[in-house]
């Protein structure tokens, strides 16, 4: 008999293979730690995780069956399975264009940003002092957009070009109050997906879209509040759009130009043509097409519209020591703050992708970009000339990278022939083909293309010969004059060594999950495992065009089908739409679906949306965008929905009740006992139930919204299902619905079969440019579910609940835990009340958050959902050691507050008020603080081993908002500050 040499007993081969090994990689606490942590909880009889679940979660909503997702497999097997899937995607040469272009991610950016957890695991930069690196990278992005568009101000990205256009439409409507018109003119030469998204958005805002030729039809139209014109157009046509812009101005309206930043490198800016808003996609600046996303869209406008600008804006301010410091500016514009007064559907941004696009411009610099853009344009000229010689008609003589070809009756046949040579072309209609050149287009591709159009004569054409003869396609008046990207940052990092170090230097300023836990309540900052992340940049996932023929995307189709089935199983829904690109967009889509459902039953008048007062601000904002009217339902002192008030309001609005939007577990981190009853009340009065999926991490494997009465939810794949936050995007907010709502899920104008149930009803219009949202990050969630299996997913939830309760227990001795549910337990997060310290010590919650920086931590969610509190969500991925490290820091800070309370420390000049403490302070000649350097910089002994040095002291929010600067300050400012 053979003996296992480690444990003295013989293990089976299966046990040695440890197929579910990933569980212990993803879940922080070990078995022993779980037992030790359970023993600390005050609740009686919770000896194991199942008993904890029984004690914390109401029995009535528990799911009775185990999840039916497949059993877990190893990390290596998961990679193999994804490899097999990837191979089913066929990467052809894409000449489709239509807003998506091949691009080369410079490897230094690929490796040091896109594939680097220091960048992709960071959170939205609310805590500016631990986010200076990506704030600077985003400022570069804004500067680049400002330079290329010729505008005065840019935001730090929107979700995609189509929604950017929709946001622009909404903004020109509200920024231009004098113009009372409700009609918006869209030039016909815009991308079809842009037009479709605009139509969806306009319908529910009560706006009317007029489509026509802006040059010939605009003037004759009556009153209009705005215009959208795309340049270069979807047909490839490049033109001077100042005529239509002047025409809309004459009507008192504003002009939006959708454009392509690569074209702008060579051509006259929309700003110089008089545009008021400029939008577009920065995808082709180094961000792979990814079968539709994620990418960063940009939005630029004039200074006077800054307070109406949607999305996040990075601004320059100063810190407490007078040095320049960056922060997110004008946050009160934001959707989640303005709630039902919001006029925008954007909450998050696409930070990681905007960072990449900005870095692309930094790395290539003006000269590099000129060459890339020049190369693209030259190849387009060569194709146009070659095809002319082969007897084909080029529709527009003035183009940048896209040629519209007249091929009467031949378009489908020629496109099919091109596919035989592994080239995808765009079919506009049976008579017209589109050919779009990008950075990746090779000389051979041109030669192949010529042969597609004419096997013999095409082969005789020489790219080199044509190159000598073409030129002058863009007329002088449309050529860009003057230098671009003059700021030093775009002229300094062109060698790989310099760029690598610049990226490292930026990264070192930030706290991401690679340094410490980020215990943000409601944000679920869990592990984004390497195995989950690796496939994202595989060629077969990264370089597919979203409108590529479906037979080339079979790997993606398999991924989508399997992920849909698994997510449906996990949530209790029957269909999933992957189109929404973020949580707020998911909410919006879900509510549109509800409205469409009511309308299909002749109840289109149902417009009341009940929302509890404790809801996240995006809920009322999305409801209003969807054309609903918000009625607030009160909450009791525990933060639970006041059922009596709900009953009254549901009865009062029984005739026009559309929906309720609730969050489960509640935004206060509690499993509400009465959730089923709440759902029943709303159903009884004809409404549908929307459950915000932000807190799904407390439910997976334990209870399902589809079972306890919900009809729709969005799922934040970037929370519960491991897509990283990317420093503030990408997000992914697919929605799940019950069977009766499936026919209303969105369809896409260019890709068939996005909603297989569409034939049974009337789907809502598209909400995103791409059919499956940000498809290329879906392998992350697929891999997570596949590696965890039913047992692992449930255990993750249980440990998330345990970790939160462990922290609530440890910290509960020092802070007041504001809300608890049954048996004194919280769900997966807990709220610490910091309000009393304002009175007792003059300390605010912000002081505590900033003091945590000195300990190397990112603060928990601050002042939400209750002002003056911290909401802590540890997630299952954090080990007991890390939880203790964070608790130790909080307990030490509590002691520092106590010293102020006792009068041992000054109320104004103390460790908290002066936090965070920088190296500038440490190295200053004089130390004039009434506390020691040790206390300031190394308040706990273990910090000596790994000290995070905040690059700036506390950032002045007031100065930054009173005087908004959102382009790169001159380098001298930084140099002067460093001295």
């Amino acid at each position, binding site marked *: 008999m053979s003996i296992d040499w480690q444990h003295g007993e013989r293990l089976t081969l299966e046990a040695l293979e440890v197929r579910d090994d990933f569980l212990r990689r993803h879940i922080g606490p070990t078995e022993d730690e779980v037992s030790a942590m359970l023993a600390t909880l005050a609740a009686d009889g919770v000896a194991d995780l199942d008993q904890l679940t029984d004690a914390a979660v109401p029995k009535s909503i528990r799911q009775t069956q185990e999840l039916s997702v497949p059993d877990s497999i190893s990390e290596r097997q998961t990679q193999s399975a994804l490899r097999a899937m990837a191979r089913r995607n066929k990467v052809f040469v894409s000449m489709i264009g239509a807003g998506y272009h091949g691009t080369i991610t410079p490897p230094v950016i690929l490796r040091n940003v896109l594939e680097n957890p220091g960048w992709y695991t960071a959170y939205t930069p609310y805590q500016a002092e631990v986010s200076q690196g990506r704030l600077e990278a985003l400022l570069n992005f804004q500067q680049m957009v400002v330079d290329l568009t010729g505008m005065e101000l840019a935001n730090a990205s929107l979700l995609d070009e189509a929604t950017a256009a929709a946001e622009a439409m909404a903004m020109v409507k509200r920024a231009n109050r004098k113009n009372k018109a409700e009609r918006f003119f869209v030039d016909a030469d815009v991308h079809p997906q842009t037009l479709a998204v605009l139509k969806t958005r306009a319908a529910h805002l009560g706006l009317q879209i007029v489509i026509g030729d802006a040059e010939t039809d605009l003037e004759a139209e009556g009153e209009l509040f705005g215009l959208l014109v795309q340049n270069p157009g979807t047909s490839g046509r490049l033109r001077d759009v100042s005529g239509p812009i002047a025409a809309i101005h004459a009507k008192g309206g504003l002009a939006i130009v959708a454009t392509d930043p690569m074209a702008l490198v060579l051509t006259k800016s929309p700003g110089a043509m008089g545009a008021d808003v400029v939008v577009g996609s920065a995808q082709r600046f180094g961000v792979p097409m990814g079968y539709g996303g994620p990418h960063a869209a940009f939005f630029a406008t004039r200074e006077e519209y800054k*307070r109406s600008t949607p999305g996040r804006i990075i601004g320059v301010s100063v810190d407490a020591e007078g040095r320049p410091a960056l922060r997110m500016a004008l946050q*009160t514009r934001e959707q989640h703050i*303005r709630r039902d007064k919001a006029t925008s559907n954007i909450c998050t941004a696409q930070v990681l992708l905007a960072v990449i696009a900005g870095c692309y411009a930094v790395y290539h610099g003006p000269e590099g970009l000129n060459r890339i853009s020049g190369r693209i344009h030259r190849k387009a000229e060569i194709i146009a000339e070659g095809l002319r010689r082969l007897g084909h008609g080029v529709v527009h003589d003035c183009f940048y990278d896209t040629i519209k070809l007249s091929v009467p009756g031949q378009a489908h046949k020629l496109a099919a022939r091109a596919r035989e040579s592994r080239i995808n072309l765009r079919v506009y209609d049976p008579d017209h083909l589109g050919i779009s050149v990008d950075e990746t287009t090779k000389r051979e591709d041109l030669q192949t293309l010529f042969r597609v159009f004419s096997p013999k004569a095409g082969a005789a054409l020489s790219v080199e010969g044509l190159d000598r003869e073409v030129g002058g396609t863009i007329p002088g008046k449309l050529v860009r004059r003057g230098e671009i990207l003059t700021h030093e940052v775009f002229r300094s990092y062109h060698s790989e060594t310099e760029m690598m170090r610049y990226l490292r230097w930026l990264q070192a300023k930030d706290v991401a999950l690679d340094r410490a836990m980020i215990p943000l309540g409601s944000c679920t900052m869990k592990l984004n495992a390497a195995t989950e992340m690796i496939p994202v940049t595989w060629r077969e996932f990264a370089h597919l065009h979203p409108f590529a023929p479906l037979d080339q995307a079979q790997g993606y189709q398999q991924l989508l089908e399997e992920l849909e089935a698994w997510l449906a199983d996990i949530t209790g829904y029957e269909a999933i739409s992957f189109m929404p690109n973020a949580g707020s967009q998911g909410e919006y889509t879900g509510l549109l679906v509800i409205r469409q459902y009511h309308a299909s039953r002749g109840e289109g008048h149902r417009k009341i949306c009940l929302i509890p007062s404790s809801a996240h601000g995006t809920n009322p904002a999305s409801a209003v965008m969807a054309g609903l009217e918000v009625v607030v339902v009160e909450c009791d002192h525990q933060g639970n929905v006041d059922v009596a008030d709900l009953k009254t309001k549901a009865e009062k609005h029984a005739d026009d009740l559309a929906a309720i939007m609730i969050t489960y577990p509640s935004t206060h981190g509690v499993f509400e006992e009465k959730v089923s009853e709440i759902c029943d009340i709303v159903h009884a009065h004809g409404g549908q139930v929307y459950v915000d999926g932000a807190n799904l991490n407390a439910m997976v494997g334990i209870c399902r919204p589809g079972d306890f009465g919900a009809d729709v939810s969005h799922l934040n794949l970037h929370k519960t299902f491991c897509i990283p936050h990317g420093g503030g995007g990408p997000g992914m907010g697919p929605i799940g619905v019950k069977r009766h709502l499936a026919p209303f899920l969105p369809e896409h104008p260019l890709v068939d079969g996005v909603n297989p149930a569409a034939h049974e009803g009337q789907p809502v219009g598209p909400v995103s440019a791409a059919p499956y949202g940000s498809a290329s990050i879906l392998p992350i969630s697929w891999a997570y579910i596949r590696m965890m299996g039913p047992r692992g997913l449930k255990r993750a939830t249980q440990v998330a609940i345990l970790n939160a309760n462990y922290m609530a227990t440890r910290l509960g001795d020092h802070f007041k835990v504001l809300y608890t549910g049954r048996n004194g337990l919280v769900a997966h997060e807990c709220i610490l009340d910091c309000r009393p310290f304002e009175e007792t010590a003059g300390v605010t919650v912000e002081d505590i958050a900033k003091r945590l920086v000195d300990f190397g931590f990112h603060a928990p969610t601050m002042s939400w959902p209750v002002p003056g509190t911290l909401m802590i969500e540890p997630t299952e991925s954090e080990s007991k050691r890390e939880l203790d490290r964070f608790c130790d820091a909080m307990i030490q800070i509590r002691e520092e507050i106590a010293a102020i309370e006792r009068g041992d420390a000054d109320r104004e000049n103390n460790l908290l008020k002066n936090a965070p403490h920088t190296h500038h302070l440490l190295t200053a000649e004089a130390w004039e603080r009434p506390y020691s350097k040790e206390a300031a910089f190394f308040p706990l002994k273990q910090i000596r081993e790994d000290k995070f040095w905040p690059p700036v002291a506390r950032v002045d929010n*007031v100065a930054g*908002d009173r005087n908004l600067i959102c382009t790169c300050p001159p380098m001298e400012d930084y140099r002067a500050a460093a001295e």
Partner: protein
Amino acid sequence: MSQIYFSEDHEWIEVEGDVGVVGITNYAQEQLGDVVFVETPEVGAALDQGDEAGVVESVKAASEIYSPVSGEVSDVNEELADNPGLVNEEPEDGAWFFKIKLSDPGELDDLMDAAAYKKFCKDQD
């Protein structure tokens, strides 16, 4: 002799003859914190009681200003655009927002006097 009235939306209006001067109360500026931006109505604008007359924004909140009475805007405080912090410093004095020519002085009866407003704020906390 002028008289001051207060609204439930935390505006004050000091009325002399048929002209009222409108601003936000000390309580309101305390709730908002450091004010970073103020938008005043346009001179000549005709406002109904309760109409949105402007915006005041701090770092953490954005609020609309509502006109406590109906009438025509006769003057606005241009200084606030450059110095929004004045709202924190002199809320019920130098940081007035706009002047309005009352069209229906009877509407003042809908508002509170200083004592009633003080009680109203206390109940809010």
